[in-house]
């Protein structure tokens, strides 16, 4: 029974840590917008906890460069599993407009395994929320098969717009 409660709890209490890798701050603003009362993500138990040691979900915005890749790796390492990574914005996905810069490594998945990709420049808050909710199923999955291969999901940007319209 306890096991069941824990399994259910895992997807009901995703705590976030948000790392700005090298974003233009556009995606960061959108990410933080998710946490405002307008969207009220605490309904899903989401808290922005700001400490990798307490977090389950790592949200990364911006492109990875040769300097901050170590920071990203370390923050990821310091999160106890099970954990998921959500790459947000074109930059997080591929390096975006910074891709060609001399010091840019590329998207987040060049450095750490990414579970959910949220495209957009910047990604819309609804898309990011959608990404987190999408990530929860990955999280539940990870628990059932702890060393399952990375079944990465991409959030459909257009879909979330519809979600927004219908609200």
């Amino acid at each position: 029974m306890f096991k069941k409660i824990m399994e259910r709890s895992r997807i009901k209490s995703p705590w976030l840590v948000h790392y700005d890798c090298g974003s233009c701050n556009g995606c960061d603003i959108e990410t933080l917008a998710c946490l405002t009362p307008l969207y009220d993500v605490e309904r899903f138990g989401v808290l922005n906890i700001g400490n990798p040691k307490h977090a389950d979900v790592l949200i990364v915005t911006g492109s990875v460069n040769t300097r901050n890749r170590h920071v990203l790796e370390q923050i990821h390492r310091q999160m106890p599993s099970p954990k998921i990574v959500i790459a947000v914005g074109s930059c997080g996905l591929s390096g975006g407009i910074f891709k060609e810069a001399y010091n840019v490594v590329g998207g987040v998945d060049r450095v750490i395994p990414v579970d959910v990709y949220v495209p957009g420049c910047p990604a819309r808050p609804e898309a990011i929320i959608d990404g987190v909710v999408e990530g929860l199923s990955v999280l539940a999955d990870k628990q059932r098969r702890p060393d399952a291969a990375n079944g990465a999901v991409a959030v459909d940007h257009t879909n979330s717009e519809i979600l927004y319209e219908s609200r």
Partner: protein
Amino acid sequence: MAAAASALLTTGSILLIGQVPIRSVPAFLSGDLFATAVQAADFALLGLFLFFGIRFKDLLITGLSAAQIAGLFFFEFVILADSHAPAAGLYCDSLSLVMVLLICIAGSLIVLYALPYMQEHERHLKPGKSRNPVFFSLLFVFIAAMNALVLVNDLMLFYFCFEITTLCSFLLIGHDRTRTARENAGTALRINSMGGAVLLLGIVLIYTRLHTLDIQEVIARVQGTGALLIPLGLLCVAGFTKAAQMPFQKWLLGAMVAPTPVSALLHSATMVKAGVYLVIRFAPAFAGTFLSTGVAVCGAFTFLSAAALAVGQSNGKKVLAYSTVSNLGLILACVGINTRSALSAAILLMIFHAVSKALLFLCMGSVEQHIKSRDIEDMRGLFGEMPKVAPIITMGILTMILPPFGMLLGKWMAIESAAGNLFLLFMLAMGSALTVVYWARWAGILMGSDFRGKPRPERLHVLSTISLFSLLGLAILLSVSAPFFHTGLLPGSITGAGGFAPVNGSLANSAGSFAVIPLFLAAAASFLFALAGSGRSSGAETAAPYMSGIAGPENGTYIGPMNRITRSVNRNYYLSAFFGEQRLSGAVNACAGILILLMMGACI
């Protein structure tokens, strides 16, 4: 040799249990010859002080000892010329017994520790000729004088012992013969001479009124009458100087220049406890008077202010010294409250404080010899370097502040007894919180993992180990058995109706109860629970601390500017803006002085 002597002392004191109360006037104490000998010794002692005063060109010491010589001369040859006071001999009641046990057991353990310590000390100091024989003889004279002090029943003999402890402390503090050692020894002599002079004045006044020097008789005749407040007040002030109460604390703080066993002895079983003993002994005589309240207020004020000063310190020995001053203040506050429960608290606090403080001082000695520093900040992660001593210090600190250990039991009793007096209560409550801060802060950093220096193997002599572990064991064992020895050992006048009594392993009075045994059971159970719990999770490897993602390869480092590996430097809060020595000392001394003047003024 010294070890054998310590063992003898301990057994002797234990054999004394069950013999009390003893009141005897042995023949050799009552003879004229003895009286003359003491007289001569008294004058010789004061002459010695006078000599020191002149040699140090210290006006205060010179003046005080000259005044004492004059006073003593006047007393012995003018007042006592025609009437001869009958010899009062010895008196050993439960209070004396507790003191004797404390002095002998804690004192012996300290001597045991001192044996290897002083060898190391000499190796480091390299005097031309070993001065250890002198040192150890002085230690034993000191312990002997303390024992005599708590056993004599004659005020003049008491005065004599009191002055001998002054002399011993003076010589021991100056033992290293460095400049600061001399200066601080001078301070000790200066302040304790004041105490001596005040004591002598008090004794003379008592004799002129009651024509007796028998302590028990004095107490019996004064008790309940509210008379003789001035001489009794003077005795209390003398006690305050010995117990290093504010504003007389300076000598005890200076005393830390001496080799550590001396500090341990001064702070735990001897010297300062002589002052406390004096006040406790005469407590029944001034119960219910304004003097009693005055003592309580002065004590509580010292408790609060010394605790505040300790918070502002990062020098470990100074923290220990201020904590001694503070705890003695608490004890005196209890004596001043002067109810049965409060006196219980005073005696229990005295016992537990002596044991824990001796332990902590001795540990400090080992740490200082090992890391060559007394600063608390240098003891971060001491566990990595001294895996034996660091946990002992931590445990020692926990016995000072947490239930179910004895010190907290005493503090609990004290606060419950003080609850009726608003002023006292405020001071005790604030002092108690400050106490937690300066201890917990220290205990916290000892076991951590950020040791800065290069580790060297910890060397702990077998005698030191025995001494440290016995003191720690004693602290715990005494705490567990508090409800039992409280009734068994403490004077019946305190444990009788209205005082604390053991109920089902708790110590209870009409106002509350402290579940000693149940709490110890709970503590043991939770400790096992904690061990089991942490054992289960110990399989995991230790993770690097969170350093905003830039932790370096080594624990406690980060990748700093220019990619350099930088050590993160943590420092505790010492709040010097509130509690710094410069900031507080002046005001605190002034207030304490005024309080003592008020106390004396009200006696008139």
